[in-house]
């Protein structure tokens, strides 16, 4: 059986309001736009209730709607177009993370980590937020973002490497974290 009724939807969706808004704010970087995006997401979800497959992850489904809505917005298009992404192999990306910077990561306060997250291109930002904050499984992220699971893994590895680099750079205060972390990627503008 598929679909949920409106009452079930409320029960499932209302607790997601804050997480969805949080995600939207990161994506849009603007309070007003994030607001509109969340409202539109709820409206679309409400209309599409029948298409929700019971047994699949409702959270992932809501994030998928939000993210697809974002993609069609002006900001979404702009932010995506600033990124030419190069997908790397999973092992390759992971292996290039050499020295563990545990002490540095621990020293970084939230504000600094927020700066590092904000400096990520949107395709890396979304994957790392869905994985580490929303704790979606790789497969759920793949479904939410409409990308293969291998791409989830390689983007995630890359996102984390860039975060480490940003954090180290911010802590050492030498370089600008908004600078692209890798030569192949063009950083998104704010």
């Amino acid at each position: 059986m598929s679909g949920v009724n409106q009452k079930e939807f409320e029960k499932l969706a209302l607790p997601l309001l804050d997480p969805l808004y949080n995600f939207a704010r990161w994506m849009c970087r603007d309070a007003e736009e994030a607001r509109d995006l969340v409202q539109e997401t709820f409206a679309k979800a409400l209309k599409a209730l029948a298409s929700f497959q019971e047994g699949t992850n409702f959270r992932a489904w809501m994030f998928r709607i939000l993210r697809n809505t974002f993609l069609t917005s002006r900001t979404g298009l702009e932010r995506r177009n600033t990124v030419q992404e190069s997908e790397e192999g999973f092992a390759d990306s992971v292996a290039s993370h050499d020295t563990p910077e545990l002490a540095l990561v621990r020293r970084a306060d939230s504000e600094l980590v927020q700066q590092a997250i904000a400096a990520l291109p949107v395709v890396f930002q979304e994957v790392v937020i869905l994985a580490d904050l929303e704790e979606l499984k790789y497969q759920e992220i793949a479904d939410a973002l409409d990308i293969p699971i291998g791409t989830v893994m390689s983007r995630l590895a890359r996102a984390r490497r860039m975060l480490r680099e940003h954090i180290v750079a911010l802590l050492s205060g030498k370089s600008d974290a908004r600078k692209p972390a890798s030569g192949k990627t063009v950083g998104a503008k704010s």
Partner: protein
Amino acid sequence: MSCQWQDKIVLFVDDELQPADQEEVSAHLSGCSECTAAVAEHLALKKAVRVAANRYSAPPDLHASIYRQLHPHARVSPWWKWGMSSVCALLLAALGYSLWPRSSGGDAMLAELVDQHVIALSSSNPVDVVSEDRHTVKPWFQGKLPFTFTPPEVAGTTYKLVGGKMVFVQHSPGAELLYTAGQHKISVFIFQEQGSSKRPARNSTFNIKNWSENGLGFYLVTDASDAEINQLVSMFRDANRS
């Protein structure tokens, strides 16, 4: 660290391994300090992202307009009614928790323990070894941890053992045992003592007990009151006394 382990460690930290692989990595970690350090580093970054990325809350008027969207014919918009639903309250508690410790760096250990406890509360698989029997749970940790400990016999008390799992806190491997006492959940963490000083035993929401026995550090994290946990603390002390 060989590449084989590097890849697996990422999957291990993201909880994407099948149970057999999960165990294989756990077993490997108990003998490999390099990989243990890598796990700790991955976890630290994940946690830093979890805390930092959780940055914005929906403004009250958005709550209100979503409510109106869902109930176009309702006259009032009591968004606060569902806003205070238990799920929201739990999320807020978890958020409050994740924010609490980092501002005061000295309590990083306790902060991580509270995080671990909150994770156990919210997870659908809070433990890796599920058993009410301490004779099943204790051997499960053997070979995984560089020390041994003795869970007390809780049969006949108000406590029930749910199971246990490996945790990595402040770079060190340890055990988390999960108990229930009525509606309350209690996590007991056990680590090798590293000469650290005693830490405050209480914060505003969770009740935390810390004691040492035989070179091991014990930490109990729960929402239950002192009266409800004192017996468990003394049973643990007795069971692990030399």
